[in-house]
Each structure stands twice: as structure tokens, then as C-alpha cells.
């Protein structure tokens, strides 16, 4: 098995287009707000100015990656190069709860944090009926840092693999962050809804697109159980660039269920990082659903740091027209008796382009690993494109690792089976496409969301399956 090492960002400094890519990244950095204007409560943000400044100086030595970089081979950077982006100050955009009604999760009522353009919107959030031992707030909340002094020294921006270009750009630009902190032995039944709203039309000055840097920190102390929904949405039209980072810490025997939902507007560019550190015997499950944005990328990186650690990654991408959706995942084993199960599915219509790269890293120390990975792609048009690459890097010799990747159209036999039961061809195709997605959707742990997404996916794929 070949072992690939790639590093992003720094490796392409000798590329001919170096100047452009460097400039493009520096422009994105310049587009960030200074802390003074980023928040009305700048005293509270002072603790982060060091973190932001350090990241900014790192960014100054970096360039945007290019398609010459193996990690970004199929990505299309042109929308990022063609337009300038600007973050905006915390301002009253007149967003009301009514505007956000369609994103409401009844299960998470009383446990919803809303961020608008990267800023915490307290008037839209309700986090007042929390059980003891559960903190759901924004990072700029002074009470939080007083109560959890280790948040910055031990957790925030401390994940492995956070050094990549876009993550560093986020750290240099973030205005505030969502924080979920669940204390040891606390089992929470209610899901926590983190709603990141982008409102481009009202906010963006001139020709520039809006830049937003959502950020989350999730700490699940040992023996705790938590479910969170990280939800990226937008209201109004306009181009915007979301560059999000979520850090999850699952400590010993903790269980974290994480739904990551990207339902951006069609004009959006979305680059997201999910970095997860798992301690011994912890369980982490991610349901990553990508439906929106013209250009999107999800970097999902899980580091197993203890024995008997379990990771489940479910992914669903549904794209059409000219959308490009790229998922790069990594499961890095480090100790014996770890397990992981990954299923990533893509439904690709029109000229859309889906990319999947699934790394599984099993070093010598990780004996008795049990890892499975499956990427299934359904192509609904002759012009759609799928690039898939399972990438298993295995050194340990006593492990069980499986992987598979399929790209297919709807099977004529499947359609016929339904037709032979009186279901017409169009309905049969819709049903089969829906069923393909439902396998992932049905595992989403929040019922109302499961239903909303099922309907959404049904609408997105219905009768588009006709040739």
C-alpha cells in the first residue's frame, strides 16, 4: 500500500501562479474586520486578538492552494479568485425569528444559538433551559471564559490538522464562536442547534461578496452524551464565501452525535473544516449533508487518540446544475482496537461534479483496527462527473480494513421491479433516487430534521432523474 504524504498550502510556493494565489489569499485576509469593529463588545474579544494576530501572520506567508496540490486536485478556485470578499461588522440587519422559521428545529427549542454573518445574535437565540452541566453560548461571553479557563489554553485552535490555509484564515478572521461544553457524566437528550445564518444582500457593500468565518468549539467531557446540529443557511440573495471551522473534543467514553448541514444559497462558496479529537472509548458520529453552494468543500478530520475508539461518518451530497461539492475525509488511527464505519453517498445531476477522497490512516500502533469505508455515487445525467478516491494507508499488520467505491446510474432492473408493481417509470426513478439518499438521511438523530431533509432531497431529485 502506497503511503502518501501531502501538505497543503506551503507546497505550491514554487508554482508559476504563485503571485496571484498569494495575493488572492492576502486579499481574503485583508477583507477581515479588525476586532475593534468586528464586535460591539470588543473587550470580550480581547483574549482572542493574540490568537487572531498569530494566525494572520501565518496567513501572510501562505498562498491559496491550487489544483497542482494533490489535496485540491479537482477543486475549482476561480470563483474565489474572480471576486473580492469582505467581512462585515456586527450590525442590525433586521433579521427576525420569523425569517428563520423554516430552519426551526422543534426538538431544539430552548437550545438554539444563532449567528448572523459570523456574529452572535442573542435576540434570535434561546439557550435558557439548559440542563445542569451543559453550557451553550458564544465564545465572547465573558462568563464562559471565567467558568472554563482552559477553553483557550487547552481546546480552542488546539486540534491536530488545523494548520491548513483556510483554517488558519478562519482563525485570523473569526468574529465570535459557538461554544458547547458538556460536563462529565452529563447526558443531554435535547439536540443543540447551531444556526449559522448568512445574510448577504443586506450586508455587503458594493461589488464585493460577503465573507463569513463561522467557528464552533465543542467539548464533551468524559462519559457525556451530546447531539448537535451545525446548520449553515442563508437568507436573501448575493454572493458569499463561508469559511467555517468546527473543533470537536470527545473525551474518554463520551458520545458525540454531530449533524453538519450545508444548505447554502446557489451563489455561495463554502469551505468547511471539521476537526475531531477522540479519546479512549469515545464515540463520534458525523452526518454531513451537503446540498447547497455552487462550490463547496468539507474537510472532515478525525483523530483517534485512544483505544476502543469508534467513529461513524455518514455523508450525503446532492448536487445539480454546475455545482461542485468536494469531501475530503481523514480518519487517523493511533491506538489499538479502534473502529470506524464510513458511508458517503453522492447524487449528481446535470453538469455537477462530486469529489470524494477518503483517507484512513492506520499506523503500526493501531493493531486490531476495524475500518470500513464505502463511497457510492449515483449519476443522473450523462454530463455529471464524479471523482472518488479511497486512500487507505495501512502500516499495522493485524487489522481489518475494507473500502469500496461505486459510480452508477439507476439500474433498469430496479426501475422495472417497481413498474411491475404498477408504479410508473418516473415515480419509480424518483423513488429509487430518494431511497438512495434515505439510507443516509434515516440515520439523522433529530426527527424533524430527518423529515425536512427528506422532503428537501425529494424536491431536489424529483423527476430530474428523467433522461
Amino acid at each position, binding site marked *: 500500500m502506497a503511503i502518501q504524504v501531502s501538505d497543503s498550502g506551503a507546497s505550491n510556493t514554487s508554482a508559476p501562479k504563485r503571485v496571484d494565489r498569494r495575493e488572492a489569499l492576502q486579499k481574503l485576509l485583508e477583507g477581515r474586520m479588525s476586532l475593534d469593529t468586528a464586535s460591539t463588545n470588543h473587550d470580550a474579544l480581547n483574549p482572542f486578538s493574540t490568537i487572531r494576530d498569530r494566525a494572520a501572520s501565518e496567513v501572510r506567508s501562505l498562498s491559496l492552494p491550487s489544483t497542482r496540490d494533490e489535496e485540491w486536485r479537482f477543486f475549482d478556485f476561480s470563483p474565489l479568485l474572480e471576486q473580492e470578499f469582505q467581512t462585515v461588522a456586527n450590525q442590525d440587519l433586521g433579521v427576525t425569528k420569523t425569517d428563520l422559521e423554516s430552519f426551526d428545529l422543534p426538538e431544539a427549542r430552548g437550545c438554539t444559538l444563532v449567528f448572523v454573518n459570523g456574529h452572535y445574535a442573542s435576540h434570535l437565540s434561546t439557550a435558557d433551559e439548559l440542563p445542569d452541566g451543559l453550557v451553550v453560548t458564544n465564545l465572547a461571553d465573558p462568563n464562559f471564559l471565567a467558568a472554563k479557563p482552559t477553553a483557550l489554553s487547552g481546546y480552542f485552535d488546539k486540534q491536530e490538522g488545523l494548520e491548513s490555509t483556510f483554517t488558519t484564515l478562519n482563525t485570523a478572521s473569526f468574529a465570535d464562536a459557538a461554544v458547547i461544553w458538556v460536563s462529565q457524566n452529563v447526558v443531554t437528550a435535547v439536540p443543540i442547534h447551531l444556526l449559522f445564518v448568512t445574510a448577504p444582500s443586506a450586508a455587503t457593500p458594493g461589488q464585493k461578496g460577503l465573507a463569513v468565518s463561522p467557528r464552533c468549539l465543542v467539548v464533551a467531557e468524559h462519559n457525556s452524551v451530546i447531539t448537535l446540529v451545525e446548520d449553515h443557511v442563508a437568507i436573501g440573495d448575493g454572493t458569499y464565501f463561508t469559511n467555517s471551522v468546527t473543533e470537536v473534543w470527545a473525551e474518554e467514553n463520551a458520545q458525540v452525535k454531530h449533524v453538519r448541514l450545508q444548505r447554502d444559497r446557489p451563489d455561495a462558496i463554502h469551505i468547511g473544516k471539521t476537526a475531531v479529537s477522540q479519546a479512549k472509548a469515545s464515540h463520534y458520529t458525523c452526518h454531513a449533508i451537503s446540498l447547497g453552494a455552487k462550490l463547496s468543500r468539507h474537510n472532515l478530520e478525525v483523530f483517534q487518540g485512544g483505544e476502543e475508539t469508534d467513529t461513524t461518518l455518514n455523508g450525503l451530497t446532492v448536487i445539480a446544475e454546475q455545482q461542485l461539492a468536494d469531501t475530503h475525509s481523514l480518519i487517523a488511527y493511533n491506538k489499538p482496537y479502534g473502529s470506524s464505519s464510513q458511508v458517503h453517498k453522492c447524487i449528481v445531476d446535470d453538469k455537477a461534479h462530486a469529489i470524494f477522497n477518503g483517507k484512513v490512516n492506520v499506523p503500526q500502533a493501531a493493531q486490531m483496527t476495524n475500518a470500513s469505508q464505502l463511497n457510492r455515487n449515483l449519476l443522473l445525467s450523462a454530463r455529471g462527473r464524479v471523482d472518488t478516491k479511497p486512500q487507505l494507508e495501512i502500516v499495522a499488520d493485524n487489522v481489518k480494513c475494507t473500502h469500496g467505491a461505486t459510480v452508477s446510474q439507476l*439500474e*433498469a*432492473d*430496479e426501475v*422495472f*421491479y*417497481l*413498474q*411491475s*408493481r*404498477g*408504479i*410508473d*417509470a418516473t*415515480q*419509480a426513478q424518483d*423513488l*429509487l433516487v*430518494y*431511497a*438512495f*439518499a*434515505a*439510507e443516509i*438521511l*434515516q440515520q439523522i438523530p433529530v426527527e424533524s430534521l430527518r423529515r425536512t431533509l427528506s422532503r428537501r432531497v425529494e424536491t431536489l431529485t424529483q423527476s430530474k432523474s428523467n433522461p
Partner: protein
Amino acid sequence: MIRDNSDVLLSVSGLTAEVEETPILKGMNLEVKAGEIHAIMGPNGSGKSTFSKVLAGHSDYSVTGGRVEFQGQDLLELEAEERARSGVFLAFQYPLEIPGVSNLDFLRVAYNARRQQQGLEELDAFDFDELVREKLDVVKMDPSFLTRSVNEGFSGGEKKRNEILQMALLEPTLAILDETDSGLDIDALKIVANGVNQLANEDNAIILITHYQRLLDYIVPDYVHVMEKGRIIRTGDKDLAHELEARGYDWVLQDAAETVEV
């Protein structure tokens, strides 16, 4: 049951069909009347399964000649789903798995499509649930099968029973059972056969496609046909099946060859 005055349900004459430009059916003739059970046997590759798929309207098979009338209507003009709604049912040799669609929803959609065709009111989820639970008994199926995805993770026997459950719900006029006995152990075979016998009546007809005489011990056919090279070369009663079981196909093929020479 053979009755002289019963209606002709299916009439196939001179049917030829091909798949990917390879001719498979080369002049099929068959008449099936209400109340009858026909068995079609024959060696591998003789065209039995193709015949069943052509009747059901699979788009991979193209009909190149001949006629098929079902209750006086030109069957070949209809789309597969229209045939199903008109009362033609094919029990698959390999029922497909449809992950993500619950068996109950699937059965209800199929059932209501047939009801609509018959000019009957569709059943809502509640009424349908009651009906389907009644029908479960026909194939001794556990209600838990209803909430599972269609055929997903079902054993071979469970899939076949699910096919017969669909038949019980759709109450077809003509049921074609394509090797429904293959891969079944004797207990499952009895359950399936018993289900089919409960559903057979004087107004409908059944075509059994099978390799083995064993099934015909439980579902007794009125006619046994032997297919070879895309045609029926011999027709007899249930004793023909026993003879085939004892002597194999060679003698029938030889007989047929001699007949042609004469």
C-alpha cells in the same frame, strides 16, 4: 382447474423477442384460461425467464413479432406499469432490494396504483395497515417485515414470501411466478406454495416457471409445457413433469427434433 367454458385470459401467438439483438423467443404460442395453472419447464437458456419478462414488459427485451392478448387487450401496447395495474403480476426470481423504502409504503403505493386502475378508492395508511396485516397470514410473515426496507437483508425465502404477499395484495388476474421455488428450503417452499394455492381461484390464472418438479407436488398444474430454444415444444399434464424429473429433457428434445424432421 380446466373448465371448457371459462374465459381466455392470455393468448400468445407467434411471439418472437430479442435482447441486445440476440433472438431469444422464436415463436411462442400459449393460451391460458381463467382458473388454470400452467407450468413452464425447460433447460437453462430455453427462454422461460425471458418469456416472463416480456409478458411483464421489461424494457431490455424487444418484441420483434407475434401477438399477446390479455383479456382481449393488446398487452404489448402497454407500459410495464399499465400491465401491472391491469392485473398482470410477475413474481421475480431475484426480487430487488430497495434500501430506504419501507416495505409497507412500497406495498401501499403498489396497491393503490392497482385500486386506482380498477376505479376504486385508494386506501389510506390506516386502512391499508389493517388489510396488509390480514394478508401477512397468507405467507406466514412477521409484521416486523413491514417496517423494514423492501427486501433489504431478507433471506432468499423471505424475499419470495414477500413476492407472494404482494400477489395477495394486488390480486392479479394473471400471475407469473418466475422460479419462485429456486433457493427455497422445503419449509419455505411449502409456505410459498400454500400461499399461491390460497390465491388461485376460478377467475385468475397462474403461470409457474420452474426447473424442478418439486414445486409441482405442492402447486398442481393443469398443464405442463416444455420450452426449448424459445418455443414450447411439448405440452402435457402434471405427469409430464414427473417424467421430466425421472428422464431429464433429452428425450423431449429428441422427440421434438424428430417431429420437425417428419
